[in-house]
């Protein structure tokens, strides 16, 4: 019996039981549906084993949207709990679990896959490649992310969710103060998906360096590809730190070491340092691709070339370097003294300079342009002032002396949501809408999209601007309740209303997808936005080989040159095309790691050992497998091209 007791929820609640039932029912429905419609073969052959960067990208995006709703539900629960004083909707323990999972899900399982999904879909197209450098590794990256996400999400029905915050500071996260298996889940879910992300980083750096179309020098790459390159370089340098920190945390919790546990020479702030040495570059991993997306969209819908291309690249490089020298600003209050804090205060503020350059470059891109207010452009236009507010409050937080007052308050919460939502989330929504016709061959309904946009922006302002004020009035973050005498009530109620509007916005976005699948016209052509970069030079939706003929490029706006300056993109004739084979190995390996992680969480050592052996067996098998890929014959390519309305342009 004792064995099974570990799997029980430590703090049960009717809502959790209802979720358990819902999860079981949905799983049964999915399995039954797939069986009834005989779709198992399709699912396995076309999606689960695919190595096509476009399909992997779409799977990332679907996962990200699902996780957005999970993390969003957490957010609405938190705002509801704080909407009135002494609210009894959630108790302290549940509130702690909810804000912990909200943070982890939104950063690791929503924002990261959203960013990586768009990079997966767009980057090979923008550089005129047929796939990424290591297609099977790319599939493995996705499935490791997916295994990590699933492992994290079952925590709240089996064994209990982590409850030490997404930053998971020790010693709060140690066995002494967090006794359930929740933090073990945190360690392994992030470990597994983090290794996947590290592989993505390596994969994209190689892809961008080695697989660009002829003529595309580094300084002729589209801005989104530039941002992807820099992002992936940051991933390669930052994620190993997370891997090591998580492993040390696991050792502390499960093998009795004391790296972070106090006593026996452990240091509690060691975790905080390692976490933020990874964590601060991480926020640039999220925001730089967003900058890239905005650059593409603003340029396209202003019908102008991107202003200051060189300074855009230079500022991103500068940001990526500085991102590794600012981590201490996450704990100015640790007591490391005025000198250390002064240094990190200055390096942090220095980031405002390249970021400011980018803001002005976007403004100057619109200057003398011909601005069309489509949904992607609306998000980009709203991004500029809102992100500026987020940026300047970041500068305020960077002033160490003032940070002693902002730290750990709602002011900080307002600031980072003010950068992440208009910065990253709007960019993802804008990018998704912008590249949607590229993926599926039709445009998302603009009318519903604009409604969603307005709900999003108004909701955001109402939800987060009041937090700046309550923070300055002494409301600490992560408090599950407050008394009426604090005077926080009206502004927290306003935040709740804002969160409700944002929830409506995201429901509208989901509805828009269903509506547009049914109703949108399919004859939008290959270039619905009058765009400028190479991904629009192929068909909508993109054939599996991307480009029938490898394009030749002579500027960062190759497709625009093709349209306006009669530059010939496609020289030569259609030939057979070499493509990677599908492989079941990645999903099997990820499944094995899921079992490994789950068993490790509950210290079921025989299963851990068996899973580890099986994992290495898969690696051995992959190493000795002779997979030369396959060819699509020239005739087949020609046939496909004709179906899309004529051979290459």
């Amino acid at each position, binding site marked *: 019996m004792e064995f099974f007791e570990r799997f029980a929820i430590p703090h049960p609640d009717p809502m959790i039981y209802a979720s358990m039932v819902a999860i079981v029912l949905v799983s049964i429905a999915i399995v039954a549906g797939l069986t009834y419609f005989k779709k198992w073969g399709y699912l396995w052959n076309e999606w689960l084993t695919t190595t096509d960067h476009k399909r992997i990208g779409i799977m990332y995006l679907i996962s990200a949207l699902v996780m957005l709703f999970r993390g969003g539900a957490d957010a609405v629960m938190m705002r509801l709990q704080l909407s009135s004083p002494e609210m009894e909707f959630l108790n*302290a323990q549940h509130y*702690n679990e909810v804000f912990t999972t909200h943070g982890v899900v939104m950063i690791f399982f929503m924002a990261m896959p959203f960013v990586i999904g768009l990079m997966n879909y767009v980057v090979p197209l923008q550089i005129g490649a047929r796939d990424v450098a290591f297609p099977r590794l790319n599939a493995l990256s996705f499935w490791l992310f997916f295994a990590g996400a699933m492992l994290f999400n079952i925590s709240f029905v089996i064994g209990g969710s982590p409850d030490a915050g997404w930053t998971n500071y020790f010693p709060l996260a140690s066995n002494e103060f967090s006794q359930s298996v929740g933090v073990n889940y945190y360690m392994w879910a992030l470990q597994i998906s983090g290794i996947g992300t590290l592989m993505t980083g390596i994969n994209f750096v190689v892809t961008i360096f080695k697989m660009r179309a002829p003529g595309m020098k580094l300084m002729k790459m589209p801005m989104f590809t530039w941002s992807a390159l820099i992002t992936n370089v940051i991933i390669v340098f930052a994620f190993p730190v997370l891997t090591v920190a998580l492993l040390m945390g696991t050792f502390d919790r499960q093998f009795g070491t004391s790296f972070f546990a106090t006593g026996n*020479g452990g240091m509690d702030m060691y975790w905080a340092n390692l976490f933020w040495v990874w964590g601060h570059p991480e926020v640039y991993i999220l925001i730089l691709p967003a900058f890239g997306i905005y650059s593409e969209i603003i340029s396209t819908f202003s019908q102008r070339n991107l202003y200051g291309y060189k*300074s855009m690249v230079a500022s991103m490089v500068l940001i990526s370097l500085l991102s590794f020298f600012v981590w201490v600003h996450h704990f100015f209050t640790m007591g490391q003294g005025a000198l250390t804090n002064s240094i990190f205060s200055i390096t942090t503020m220095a980031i405002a300079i390249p970021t400011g350059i980018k803001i002005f470059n976007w403004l100057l891109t619109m200057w003398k342009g011909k601005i069309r207010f489509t949904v992607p452009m609306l998000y980009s236009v709203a991004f500029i002032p809102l992100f500026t507010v987020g940026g300047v409050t970041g500068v305020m937080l960077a002033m*160490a002396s003032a940070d002693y007052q902002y*730290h750990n308050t709602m002011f900080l919460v307002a600031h980072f949501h003010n950068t992440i939502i208009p910065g990253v989330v709007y960019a993802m929504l804008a990018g998704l809408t912008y590249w949607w016709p590229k993926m599926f061959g039709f445009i998302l309904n603009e009318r519903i999209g604009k409604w969603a946009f307005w709900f999003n*922006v108004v909701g955001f302002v109402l939800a987060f601007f009041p937090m700046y004020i309550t923070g300055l*009035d002494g409301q600490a973050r992560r*408090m599950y309740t407050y008394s009426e005498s604090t005077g926080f009530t009206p502004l927290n109620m306003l935040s709740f209303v804002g969160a409700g509007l944002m929830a409506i916005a995201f429901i509208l976005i989901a509805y828009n997808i269903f509506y547009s699948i049914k109703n949108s016209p399919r004859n939008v052509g290959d270039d619905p936005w009058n765009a400028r970069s190479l991904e629009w030079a192929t068909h909508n939706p993109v054939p599996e080989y991307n480009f029938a003929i490898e394009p030749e490029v002579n500027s960062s706006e190759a497709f625009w040159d093709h349209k306006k300056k009669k530059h010939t993109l496609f020289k030569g004739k259609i030939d057979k095309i070499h493509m990677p084979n599908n492989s079941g190995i990645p999903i099997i390996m990820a499944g094995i790691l899921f079992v490994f992680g789950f068993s490790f969480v509950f210290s079921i050592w025989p299963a851990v050992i068996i899973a580890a052996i099986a994992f290495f067996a898969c690696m051995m098998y992959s190493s000795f497998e002779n997979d030369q890929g396959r060819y699509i014959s020239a005739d087949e390519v020609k046939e496909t091209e004709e179906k899309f309305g004529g051979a290459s342009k």
Partner: protein
Amino acid sequence: MKLKWTLLTFIFTIATVLTGCEPLLVLDPKGPQAATTADVIWLSIITMAFIVITVLVLLIIILVKYRASKQDDDYEPPHIEGNPIVEGIIVGIPILIVIFLSIVSVVSTYQVETVPEGYEDQEPLVIYASSSNWKWHFSYPEQDIETVNYVFIPTDRSVQFKLYSHGPITSFWVPQLAGQKYAMADMVTTINLAAESAGEFMGRNANFSGEGFAENTFNVIAMPQDEFDTWVDDIHATADPLTEDIFNELLEPGHLGQLAFTGTHLEFSPPPEGEHGGHNHGSSDDTEQSEDEHDDSEHDHH
């Protein structure tokens, strides 16, 4: 355009709230340290408002002037690579602003980290503030008393809080007197502050520390020195002595009201400084010990 108006209306609403209602705690300082941070905050708000308004105005002008619906169908926007003068300006102005704010930041950080200006000659009143789940213990080594969840301090006197934790990391915060500092289990950190008006101030742990975190608060009561001395005498006359057993009971996770004792726990449960510091690895080796003491004294004197 609607967006701009929404934003503007909102900024005005915020301004009204800021000026109309009671002042926000952080911007209503009662001592020199909090006054410094409040000044820095106001200065940065004004500088930052200038930047936000500039961006907003530029954006509105550009959107109004260059929107497609206002232009000829055959207008073809020009290709503009960049202009050294324009780029010089957009790099130069942010650099100047950052240099200005960096100077303010460094100077004020040194100010709030040291004894408040004008109090340098005084012998500071030393109070050890240690947190346990989810309480604050205040030990007055000089007065030989200890309180739980409330602390009396004399006004117009330099007070030095020595912070550490009996459990998870916490953050000692009295917004109207000074900014935060972490209390940790393996070292002692220091806050220097002074209260310049009598009154009762909200203090709390600002760093999430588990289930009882929300209620992990304390009161700071500032009063003139003579009243403070009377209070100390009262405690000596009325309170029970703090024994190790009682103290261990106090440490049990949970919430307690306000308590007072004679004697402090520092005698039988020394703070993690000097030879008891977390960095000495429990070793009795002489050379290591002296190095560690050196380490710890650095921690104390910033």
